[in-house]
């Protein structure tokens, strides 16, 4: 652990962070409440941010420098587009409270799945089956809540289905030592097939029941509206007051996972198994058992993402409901460098990009589509090492053979 003073940004790093702030400002000046109507202002401010970013990038502060450059370009783009749209439309797109609420709703399924992926990958087992595990959680939570009439049992049934998928993945990749990527691909196929089959079989063409379905309750935090000043209270209320229970479970889980993985003996065992299983085995850690536990837990958490999506957010199921969210979660995990808080920030960023895409539909359908691709572009840039390398656990993807 380094001392606190060393952890504060200094020198070029501080300059680069200032550049990020300037980049954000470029977008802010055109938006309500400031609302400049002239494209020159965001262009100049965006260019300043770009210059600051490039300067600190060249002088060695690559990661934050790149952030500043990105912020500059994005700030300019948003600012420029905003000045060209009509004021009415702009107000429809940018209602900050609603945008943040929507960001959180999009980020939460990703967060659960990314944290699930974290356990599996930290133990050395690649999990590209997150998508399939989420999908299982989605269907079985709705079906469970429908059959039992209780959302609690629905959640449990959904999580159990994820655990079963995790067990299958664990059995094939750990015990049978088959290729983990092939196994994950198979999980995705199987989950899509099984859920579509059961959906058609049970619900046919009518869709899942909407009347009287017991769903995960929202947590009412209406006191947030009373926080002075009114603007702040309104924003906090819009953003947080009506969120689902699972949103707060997800927030708590980030801290819990951080403590579990980095601050407990069990977490140390988990990471050692993922970095150097032979050494872990030598000191008496059961590599197989640790990996099994991690992969099954990964299935449970990933399916929790699907459970929230179906039973907390949308309140129904349709075939292939997750539509690639498992892969965005994988991207968030990698972008966040296999760390809980990094993954959480990445989930918020990707969730924001989805939320923005959704609200931009009012303004332009085609531009909003491009925002959907942003998470994947950012992740490629991250793994390419342009903004600080993402380093996976050393033994990831390699099956362990006990001697």
């Amino acid at each position, binding site marked *: 652990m380094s001392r606190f003073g060393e952890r504060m940004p200094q020198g070029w790093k501080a300059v680069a962070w200032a550049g990020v702030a300037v980049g954000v400002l470029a977008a802010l000046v055109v938006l309500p409440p400031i609302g400049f109507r002239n494209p020159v202002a965001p262009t100049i401010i965006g260019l300043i941010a770009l210059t600051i970013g490039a300067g600190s990038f060249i002088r060695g502060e690559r990661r934050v420098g790149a952030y500043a450059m990105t912020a500059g370009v994005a700030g300019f783009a948003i600012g420029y587009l905003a000045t060209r749209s009509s004021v009415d439309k702009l107000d429809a797109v940018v209602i900050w409270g609603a945008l943040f609420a929507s960001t959180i709703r999009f980020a939460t399924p990703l967060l659960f799945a990314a944290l699930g992926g974290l356990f599996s990958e930290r133990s050395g087992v690649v999990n*590209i089956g997150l998508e399939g595990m989420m999908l299982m959680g989605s269907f079985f939570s709705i079906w469970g809540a429908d059959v039992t009439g209780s959302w609690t049992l629905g959640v449990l049934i959904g999580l159990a289905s994820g655990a079963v998928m995790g067990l299958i993945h664990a059995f094939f990749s750990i015990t049978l030592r088959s*290729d983990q990527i*092939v196994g994950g691909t198979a999980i995705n*196929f199987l989950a*899509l097939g099984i859920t579509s089959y059961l959906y058609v*079989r049970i619900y046919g063409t009518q869709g899942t029941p909407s009347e009287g379905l017991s769903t995960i309750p929202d947590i009412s935090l209406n006191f947030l509206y009373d926080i002075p000043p009114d603007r702040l209270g309104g924003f906090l209320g819009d953003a947080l007051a009506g969120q689902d229970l699972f949103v707060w479970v997800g927030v708590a889980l980030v801290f819990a996972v951080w403590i579990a993985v980095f601050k407990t003996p069990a977490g140390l065992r988990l990471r050692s198994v993922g970095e150097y299983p032979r050494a872990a085995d030598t000191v008496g850690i059961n590599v197989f058992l640790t990996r099994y536990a991690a992969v099954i837990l990964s299935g449970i958490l990933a399916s929790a993402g699907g459970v929230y999506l179906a039973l907390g957010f949308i309140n129904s199921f349709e075939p292939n409901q997750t539509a690639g969210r498992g892969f965005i979660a994988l991207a968030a995990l990698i972008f966040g460098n296999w760390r809980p808080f990094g993954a959480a920030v990445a989930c918020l960023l990707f969730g924001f990009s989805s939320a923005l895409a959704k609200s931009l539909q009012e303004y332009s359908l085609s531009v909003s589509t491009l925002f959907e*691709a942003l998470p994947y572009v950012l*992740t490629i840039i991250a*793994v390419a090492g342009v903004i600080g390398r993402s380093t996976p656990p050393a033994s990831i993807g390699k099956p362990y*053979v006990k001697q």
Partner: protein
Amino acid sequence: MTTVNQQTPTPEEEEAQGALARYLHLQKAEGLLAPLITALLAFLIGGAVVFATTKSVPDVLQTYRAIFEGAGLDWFLPWNTCQDPCVPAIKLEQTLLVWVPLVLTGLAVAFAFRCGLFNIGGQGQYLAGAIASVIIAAELPLHVDLSPVPLVLLCMVAAMAAGAGLAAIAGFLKATVGAHEVITTIMLNWIVIWVGTYLFGFEGPLQNDQAKEIPVSNNIADGAKITQVGVWGHPDLQGLPWISLGVAFVALVIYSLLLNRTTLGYEVRAVGFNPEAARYGGISVARSYVLAMGIAGAFAGTAGALDVLGWKFRLDTTDFSSTIGFIGIAVALLGRNTALGVGLAALLFAALQTGTSTRNLDPEIFPPELATPLTIIIQGLIVLFVGADIVVLLLLRRLRRGRRAGAAA
């Protein structure tokens, strides 16, 4: 590290090779046996799903028979006489139409496999090819007057270049900064999907000029269509895709020759077996990674072009959710990365796809709306077991080694 027996690697060495390397090493060992067992096992478990639906064993057999006939495979049975219009022939044509892109996306995965790379981006490369060819075939004839042959060739080349370029990004990142190709190809898949949705979706720059209410591209020019008139079956129906079939066969031959008869192929395989040894032997590993991915992408891109020019004639944004590139993974795995194997595995998956389609499956025997999920389950089971068939092979080898040791003592 020296061991008592140079022939058999220690478990530690085996571990260092990783599952993929061991898989590559063993894939030639057991020929046709393991894939057959794998497919049978998958169909057996798939049969359990059918049984759960139909609730009787004879119905399970009936269902598989209906799928077999839905795919038109009964055309091959010599005792089967066929009236005019010949229904099995028409169905077989559809199977072959699906066979072509499956062969090519299968080869895209297989070629990268032989270089030790897992190309999960067949989907994106296929779509990149489809997008490139639809843009050229629909937009270029509006500005330039081109006769059919150069137009089709141009579309094919553009599609190959698009697929190759996309895949080469992943190869380049692997070669230069060591970014894992599985991650980068997954990300590239989704980037292509969203760029395609942007181009041809609502208000997109290349959305259909006439039909603004549906998210499709413009229709391709008539000159760019490579469909053939009905040689078989009914004249009104889709004919046998001679040109596409030809391209797929040529691709299989090129794949085999390129890998086994050229310096490039030797280098690719050497890197696939052991990159360190290949580097020591003077082979540029980075160059092999980029080239192998590029060639793989060119195969998948060709598939996209053939589908667009052969029967789609335009791209719908729902086309982006097809799983043809992912089935390519199953094809390559089941076909053990050999040309013959890929051809046969693609036939199995194409028949499964066509045989369970709503149009071809007899609704009296199995509800067609359940048939597509059933197909996906069987595909998943095949991938699952194919991934594990290394266990069968390892067990066989252990047994033999044990027997050899026993004989020596």
